[in-house]
């Protein structure tokens, strides 16, 4: 008895040792705190980071930005060719990809995905511009055609998550499967959404037939816990119930930097925060002179030093300084005395404005308070209305329901000037057209420059065009660029492999993470 008992574990160890050479089975559970609950699971809403962070694990795209990189890598697509005129992209798909239900992923699924998004008028297509159609060449070849050349097309495909046609198609009837995909998942990604309780937690479990294999250190389960309170997130991080806490206050993050057991990761984010002035308004912000005055009333340096506690970069115009095509000095510097003079000269004192913002985001609130305080000094009342993202998004759908000022983060889906400038300043993408141009900004010259830049493939030419556009935008005083905060995430030191992904801001590279 005794000797056998001793023998068996040895045998098991030997066997598992053999298999671990081929595949290291994912182990452990990673718990990530998140302060906003997801709307749903629909890949059509992948523009929203609380949705994207779940989809990123559950779905695959044709190409993807690996965390920490600025160029796309092949994913579902092994390789691709681009036609001379830049209008046709032909992708060769991997042949070993299976969906979570075990069926093979083919070109038909890719075509179906794109057709569905088009039919559903999905937000995620806003970034993809002139896509006109998809065509199945054979099982593993798909051809996408554009109506005109579009430089960042490949980058934009990184948020087009391919769905399982066989599963989704039966639910297309009324609403393009929006309701079905809102709570069901039809992906091929490394993780399967195991449970979805959007007010409590969402759990993803490793998919054992993942085409990419499970080499290296991975977690078997990822749980997103929805914890609104920064303080609760902090205490859960400290009690070990949570390993990643992105939403605790800057002050707490600074304190954690000095504490053993935690790592505070500061990612170089390229997500500008704007005050968008309602440029189409019949009210005071419709007046460029007035906007010029407003443009002088925000102290960015103070915001960076005291609100972000230095964890970010000082903005110089709407584009990140390090990006190609950045033009310096297009926005006015902080000059409250100058603004005061303009107010006095024009008799603007006593004006009341409204700003809408997301109170859940500490730095937005602080920025609003800062602006309120400054404007109060020059005789202008700024009322604030705290909202949640979808509610605020609903108000900008009409010019007359758009507040005088809206705070908005631009989360570029890929690191290209187009992703920021086009989304925020192209008149085709104003709030009333369903886009993120919440300044309702419309300037034909700017539109022309942006469109030309988008269809060009020459980097130098594009940079030049974007520079010109920035100058024009600056002259119209459409926005104040408030900050470029770093992506500061507090992580337990048991976590291995966390890396900030600029293309998927506020998500987590869960497929790279393991636990010590």
């Amino acid at each position, binding site marked *: 008895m005794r000797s056998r008992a001793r023998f068996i574990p040895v045998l098991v160890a030997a066997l598992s040792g053999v298999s671990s050479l081929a595949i290291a089975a994912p182990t452990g559970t990673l718990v990530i705190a998140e302060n906003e609950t997801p709307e749903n699971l629909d890949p059509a809403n992948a523009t929203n980071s609380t949705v994207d962070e779940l989809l990123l694990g559950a779905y695959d795209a044709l190409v993807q930005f690996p965390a920490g990189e600025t160029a796309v890598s092949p994913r579902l697509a092994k390789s691709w060719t681009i036609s001379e005129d830049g209008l046709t992209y032909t992708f060769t798909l991997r042949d070993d990809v299976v969906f979570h239900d075990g069926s093979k992923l083919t070109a038909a699924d890719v075509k179906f995905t794109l057709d569905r998004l088009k039919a559903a008028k999905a937000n995620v297509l806003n970034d993809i511009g002139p896509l006109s159609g998809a065509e199945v060449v054979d099982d593993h070849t798909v051809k996408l055609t554009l109506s005109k050349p579009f430089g960042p097309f490949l980058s934009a495909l990184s948020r087009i998550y391919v769905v399982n046609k066989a599963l989704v198609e039966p639910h297309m009837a009324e609403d393009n499967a929006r309701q079905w995909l809102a709570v069901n998942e039809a992906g091929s990604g490394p993780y399967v959404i195991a449970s979805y309780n959007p007010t409590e937690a969402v759990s993803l479990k490793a998919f054992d037939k993942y085409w990419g294999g499970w080499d290296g250190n991975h977690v078997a389960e990822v749980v997103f816990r929805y914890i609104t309170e920064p303080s609760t997130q902090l205490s859960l991080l400290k009690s070990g119930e949570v390993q990643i806490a992105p939403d605790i206050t800057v002050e707490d993050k600074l304190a954690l930097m000095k504490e053993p057991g935690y790592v505070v990761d500061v990612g170089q984010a390229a997500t500008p925060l704007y005050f968008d002035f309602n440029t189409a308004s019949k009210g005071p912000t419709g007046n460029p002179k007035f906007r010029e005055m407003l443009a002088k009333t925000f102290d960015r340096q103070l915001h960076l030093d005291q609100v972000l506690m230095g964890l970010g970069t000082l903005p110089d115009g709407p584009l990140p300084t390090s990006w190609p095509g950045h033009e310096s000095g297009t926005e006015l510097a902080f000059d409250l005395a100058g603004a005061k003079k303009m107010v006095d000269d024009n008799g603007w004192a006593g004006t009341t404005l409204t700003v809408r913002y997301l*109170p859940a985001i500490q730095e937005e609130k602080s920025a609003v308070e800062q602006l309120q305080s400054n404007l109060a000094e020059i005789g202008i009342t700024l009322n604030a209305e705290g909202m949640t993202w979808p509610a605020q998004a609903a108000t900008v759908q009409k010019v007359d329901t758009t507040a005088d000022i809206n705070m908005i983060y631009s989360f570029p889906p890929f690191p290209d000037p187009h992703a920021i400038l086009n989304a925020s300043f192209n008149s085709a993408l104003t709030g009333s057209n369903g886009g993120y141009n919440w300044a309702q900004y419309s300037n034909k010259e700017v539109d022309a420059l942006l469109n030309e830049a988008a269809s060009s493939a020459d980097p130098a030419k594009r940079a030049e065009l974007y520079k010109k556009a920035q100058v024009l935008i600056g002259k119209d005083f459409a926005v104040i660029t408030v900050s470029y905060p770093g992506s500061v995430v507090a992580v337990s030191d048991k976590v291995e492999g966390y890396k900030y992904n600029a293309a998927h801001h506020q998500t987590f590279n869960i497929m790279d993470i393991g636990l010590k």
Partner: protein
Amino acid sequence: MRVLRRLLSFPKTNVERTAIVLGCLILLLALVGAFLVPFDPMKIDFRAKLQAPSMLHWLGTDGSGRDVLSRLLYGARLTLASTFAVIIVVVIIGCTIGIASAFVGGAVDNMLMRLADIWLGFPPLILALGFASALGASLEAAIWALIFSWWPNYARLSRMVTADILSQKFIASADALGVPTHRKVLHYVIPNAMDVMLIQIALDISAVMLAISGLSFIGVGAQIPAPEWGAMIADGRSYVSNGWWIVLAPGIAIFITAVSFNVIGDMLRRELDPTSRRR
């Protein structure tokens, strides 16, 4: 003079005396506090943020470097003014409906009171939440929302008190004299209903205040930078780990105010309520 002497004879215990002193102090601060504030309650100074209570900032500073004491004093007016706004409107609307209902009687009375009964049943916070969400988030919306959900309290109470008064023999005496209705309302009903209303108002001050601050806390009430006490708590929530005083101070302010008015209301009930006075 008479009334004042009578009022001064009310408090019987030290708790009640303390409550009255505190209540008056809070009302006084609400009136003049805005002029006493040591710092500008709205002025942002990020360099001074999250300072613990000190000789300079007695209650510390908040996450935007504003003096908590100044905000508290300034907020006293906002908080109490909203509370009283709700109560005044609710008393006027509710009592008009209630008194009219009692006078008209019959089916109309029955219907109105059933309506009020049912209305009253719904959790005021949820009803207010629904209303506020329809109106959009602002302190005014929260005030209207509370009025919308609170009026049946007074309609019912005033209808009950009026019916009780109308059933008394001095009203029958007045009827025997042919006293006209308007005179009955003004000279008979209102003066006699006053005490009960006063008690209810005193007790409702804390309830309404808690409701308003609750709505502000949820985010459908006062908006930044208004230092409404509930909003201040909401504001300080994220700093509990490194700025506990930001949450503590307005909470204690609400607590003290609510308890003071509760004690005063209870005292008034003991002294004025005819049912408890009769031994």
